[in-house]
């Protein structure tokens, strides 16, 4: 060390001593600094979550076997699981399809009132699930717009609000704004010269869309689709407003917990719900990261 060599022997000695003590002190400081984060992590995540996982392994009140096993063996739970996943998945697909096209159009065209339109389209993001459920009832409930119209035209009430179709519409309603905003941002980041290159080689607009634009925004579509899926899987407010008779996971968890005090089953369903959502999110992240190279 060039610095210590210039100093008297005593100083050099104390300097080396200080260095040998430094890592210990550093560790202490690190632990001290990490303490709040660790406390939050323990109190709000690790402890309740491990408790939840363990609780799910306990015996279910009705079947008497482990609640995890009950989900897989009892049709009632299995159907609810499949329904929830199917509805969420379909909603994500349809939302990405509709809002993907709309988002691309909005990103590429300038017209009067565009900013107002974008603001209106993304407005549902501001609503909680309860309000979205209420809106679906206004549209497809007993006194809803569709019922009024069909009553007037065919003398019968058409309703869909209290079924899976209502749930589907509700979920779609709050998924579309997310996709539109993500796709618009992705389109603005697309390298325009890629499209120009494809066109110079003779590609028509359909071929440009298929070969350049869709691959270019694929990571954004995948990740926004995964987020739609995750939100739909766990959406409670909308489902609760539309009716507790619907057999979907969030309502099941609530029902087992409050109506039957079946804590083991509620815990097991929660863990399964969390696991599926987590897998979907990380899968999308992985696919979006490795499958499509970043533009130059």
């Amino acid at each position, binding site marked *: 060390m060039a610095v210590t060599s210039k100093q008297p022997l005593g100083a050099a000695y104390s300097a080396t001593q200080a260095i040998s003590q430094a890592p210990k002190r550093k560790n202490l400081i690190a632990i001290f600094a990490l303490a709040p984060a660790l406390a939050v992590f323990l109190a709000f995540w690790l402890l309740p979550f491990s408790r939840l996982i363990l609780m799910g392994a306990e015996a279910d009140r009705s079947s008497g076997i482990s609640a995890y096993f009950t989900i897989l063996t009892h049709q009632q739970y299995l159907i609810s699981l499949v329904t929830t996943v199917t509805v969420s998945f379909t909603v994500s697909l349809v939302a990405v399809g509709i809002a993907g096209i709309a988002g691309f159009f909005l990103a590429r065209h300038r017209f009067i009132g565009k900013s107002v339109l974008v603001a209106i389209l993304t407005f549902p993001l501001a609503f909680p699930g309860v309000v979205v459920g209420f809106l679906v009832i206004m549209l497809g409930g007993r006194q809803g717009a569709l019922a009024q119209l069909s009553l007037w035209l065919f003398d019968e009430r058409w309703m869909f609000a209290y079924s899976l179709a209502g749930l589907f519409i509700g979920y779609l309603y709050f998924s579309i704004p997310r996709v539109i905003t993500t796709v618009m941002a992705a389109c603005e980041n697309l390298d325009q*010269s*890629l499209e120009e290159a494809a066109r*110079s*080689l003779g590609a*028509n607009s359909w071929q440009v869309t298929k070969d350049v634009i869709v691959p270019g925004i694929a990571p954004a579509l995948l990740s926004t689709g995964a987020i739609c899926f995750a939100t739909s899987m766990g959406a409670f407010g909308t489902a609760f407003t539309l009716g507790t008779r619907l057999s979907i996971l969030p309502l099941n968890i609530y029902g087992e917990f409050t109506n039957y005090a079946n804590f083991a089953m509620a815990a097991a369903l929660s863990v399964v719900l969390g696991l599926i959502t987590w897998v979907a999110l990380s899968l999308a992240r992985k696919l979006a990261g490795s499958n499509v190279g970043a533009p*130059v």
Partner: protein
Amino acid sequence: MSSSVNIILTQCSRTFSGGHTALQPLDLHINAGETLVLLGPSGCGKTTTLRIISGLESPDQGGRVQFGGQDVTTLPIEKRDVGMVFQNYALFPNMSVADNIAYGLKIRRLSRSEIEQRLAEVMRMVDLEGFGERRIEALSGGQKQRVALARAIAVRPKVLLFDEPLAALDAKLRDRLRLEIGQLLRKLGTTAVYVTHDQDEAMALGDRIAVMQAGRIAQLGTPQEIYHQPANTFVADFIGAVNRLVVTGKGADGQLTVPGGELTAPHLQEALSVYCRPEDIEVVALADAQVKGRVLQSIFLGQSQQLMVDTGGATPIQVKASSRQHWPTGAAIGLTLPPQALFHPELSHSKLATTSAKEQANG
């Protein structure tokens, strides 16, 4: 590929929505098989001109674009049969090298065997054999631009368009690729338009160069004409370095008095200033010198050195001298400016300069 076409632009202007005019009405005739370089600083309209030729942009009302006698003004780029090379390569990141190059061939629905054959042919041309399965991300900048070049020529376009293709590469690679593009263009014989702001690139590649300034063509000519007979001071300044010497008086024998001495220039009698390239100025013994001054600074460049000589004028004279001479700051130096090296862009007489140079070469 002998069927190259000419390109004719008639009264092509371009005004953007904000009212900014990027291009003044332009008439341009590009001969079949020639490489025309559009050269100029950024914002001069060169890229707009290229984009109008390509079909990516339309000229304002009244402008016309013709390829080989066919009016293509209203045709979009995908119907114009052009090959285009971009500054940022614009390669499709989701496709392999081979898929990138074959893209235009697949769009044209060629048979698989023909695609294979053309792919092999162009990959050999651009020295990319064996790279077919590589991912684009795994290529260096130079390799990427070769792929882009191969992709553009694979479709055997009527016209090849280059939009500053070498600007993103480092100097050494740029020189090499410039040479290769030049050889390729000569071999293909396709009409090409090449946009650049680099004068060396323009000189090396262009059969003719159009120097552009503020949305107009300042001069259109061969590299030699542009360099030795610049049409105006802008061109003279933009292409290579140039010295401007203010004429302060005139001797009885027609000698022009400039700061530091007198010059012989019978063809520039009316000139208020004369121009001279740094490499045309000779360093001579003080006794034989026309102009004398002091060295302000010498910059060693390896193959030569650049001397800044103060002759008492407002700006020092730039001289390109042999790099083996030693010129300390403050040293007295003698210069000779041969008559044929002196010119004035705005005086038509200045063309005498090259004529006398030719005579000298012949005699």
